[in-house]
């Protein structure tokens, strides 16, 4: 009997030791979004999708994973990164064959006025759903995507860490990718360093900046910010005088139903504009020189052109060749190599 009493604790110890390891409790770490100089404090982070380290990491993995198509990826690369290339400011860097050119994914956490060229999608979470299901984009079935990811070895655990449940839902897929996209922050261009007093612009770059922010110069700032609006866009919609006839059924008027929005599109950020070719909603310009030439000499008047196109009656802002070169020199200071090469934004699967 004594022997039995001696053995019993050992037996219990073995039992305890053999008990499967308890799952780590769901304790995500809050992700701290930076607050760069002259950026808004207001973000579009929804109350039901706060950013977490785990959520951003999961979103990054999904962003680059062909299995987001609900297939194994051998039928062709289909994920967010198929069209959003980091080196091209997270746009396509050419014609993607879509109705509108691919917009960059940069500093979107501070965009509170709708997404896409016409602003028809209001949240990044919705944008994920739109892109995944669009027949001309990822072209996936959301239920199939969920089923496929659920069967993988790695994703259920990553979803648990991010959202507290091993059961994958498409809502959580949307949330994770939206978190990653919100984490894409560009705030370290030469111009940012100039604003922070860390680096001086060259004389040509300064002259270009002066042109950028003056009505008698290139008159860019009313729509594209600068200085105390370092997003380099108002994120609002304007008809910038590209055309004088409007047949695009997907311009801003398709969303607002207003005549006055015919030919209007979102003013995109000019951050990393040098690597964001092609330009305009339809990608009609391939170089910055063409864009500057357009604003200088080829702006077309129409009833719906934005009143902010002050110089339309002269066909544009009428820049000299020297001024065009200076403006281009300034625009090049908006290239943020830190952003374009940030390892935290690259494909984690390689």
């Amino acid at each position: 009997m004594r022997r039995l009493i001696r053995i019993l604790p050992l037996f219990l110890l073995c039992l305890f030791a053999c008990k499967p390891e308890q799952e780590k409790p769901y304790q995500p770490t809050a992700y701290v979004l930076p607050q760069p100089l002259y950026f808004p404090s207001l973000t579009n982070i929804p109350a039901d999708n706060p950013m977490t380290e785990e959520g951003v990491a999961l979103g990054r993995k999904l962003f680059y994973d062909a299995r987001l198509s609900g297939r194994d990826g051998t039928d062709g690369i289909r994920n967010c990164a198929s069209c959003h290339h980091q080196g091209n400011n997270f746009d396509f860097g050419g014609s993607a064959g879509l109705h509108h050119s691919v917009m960059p994914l940069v500093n979107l956490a501070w965009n509170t006025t709708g997404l896409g060229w016409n602003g028809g999608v209001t949240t990044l979470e919705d944008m994920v759903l739109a892109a995944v299901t669009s027949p001309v984009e990822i072209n996936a079935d959301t239920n199939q995507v969920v089923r496929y990811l659920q069967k993988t070895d790695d994703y259920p655990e990553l979803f648990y860490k991010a959202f507290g449940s091993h059961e994958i839902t498409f809502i959580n897929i949307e949330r994770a990718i939206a978190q990653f996209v919100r984490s894409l922050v560009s705030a370290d261009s030469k111009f940012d360093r100039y604003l922070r007093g860390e680096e001086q612009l060259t004389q040509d770059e300064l002259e270009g900046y002066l042109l950028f922010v003056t009505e008698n110069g290139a008159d860019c700032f009313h729509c594209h910010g600068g200085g105390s609006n370092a997003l380099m866009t108002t994120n609002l919609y304007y008809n910038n005088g590209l055309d004088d006839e409007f047949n695009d059924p997907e311009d801003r008027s398709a969303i607002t139903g207003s005549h006055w929005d015919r030919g209007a599109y979102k003013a995109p950020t000019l951050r990393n504009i040098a690597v964001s070719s092609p330009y305009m909603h339809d990608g009609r310009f391939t170089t910055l020189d063409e864009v500057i030439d357009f604003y200088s000499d080829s702006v077309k008047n129409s009833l719906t052109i934005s009143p902010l196109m002050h110089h339309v009656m002269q066909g544009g802002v009428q820049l000299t060749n020297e001024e065009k070169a200076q403006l281009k020199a300034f625009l090049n200071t908006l290239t943020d190599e830190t952003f374009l090469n940030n390892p935290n934004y690259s494909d984690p699967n390689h």
Partner: protein
Amino acid sequence: MKKTLFILMLLMAMALVSCKKPVQSGDLTVNINYSVNGKPLITDSLCYQNEAGNEFMITEIQWFISKMELQNEQDEWVELEPRIFYIDTNIPESQILRIASIPVGKYKTLRFTFGLDEAYNQTGLFSNPPESNMFWPDPLGGGYHYMKLNGKYRNENEELAPLNIHLGIGQNTDQSEFYHNYFNVELPISLTIAENTENQLNMFMIIDNWFRNPNLYDFDEFGSAIMQNQTAQQLLKENGKDVFSTIQHSGNQNNITMKNDKTLKRFNNFMHQAAPKPHFWTWENVKRTVESIKDNLKQQS
């Protein structure tokens, strides 16, 4: 004994102070209105004419009013909070200025600053839109536009040209000197603030007054791109003195005859087109399609 008496008196004084009746206060709502030629503003409508004979339309008005104060019958000025309001014809709720905790009583004067004075007009004051979108570039003096009034006018060549009355800090030609073009306005009022009552005050921007008194303001000369034109800024600053009122005035140009030519016809034809219809590939359609796929899958399972 003296000490005890002193403490007693101190306690009584404290009791008296603590029993003092709190200042009674009420709230005030200032409703911003716009009129042109004596009638309420209709945006995006080519139906106005200024004193110089320019026909025009207004798309939007975005502006700052600051440092509002009320003068009571004892000639004391009461500062109203918040000290700055951003007002935007595109944002209906911004046209209603809500001011809390004004001492009850009668007030005879309202005064305010149109725009922002030197103390407030500092680059970086506003970090968020829509206020931050009013920024006025540092090379031109910095801070913010006091006002952006945007629209179109019929120019000398009978074309619709941009109309931009953008007010802010002016500069001399080499930008070595800056001129603050804000101005202060005082309006006689008869206002009683009662406790627990939603007190109302109407304020009007009489838009045509920007362009006529004391200076005739011609859009063919100063219609657009005036941020670097201190002459235009000064004319508007001087004209601005009688732009604001708490009484709706009837205009002095009630019988305007607009030129009935091809420009107006083109404009009217445009306005009478059917409203643009959303294309199939819109978010709402995508969402509907996705929902129906999900429903089908549920039914199948």
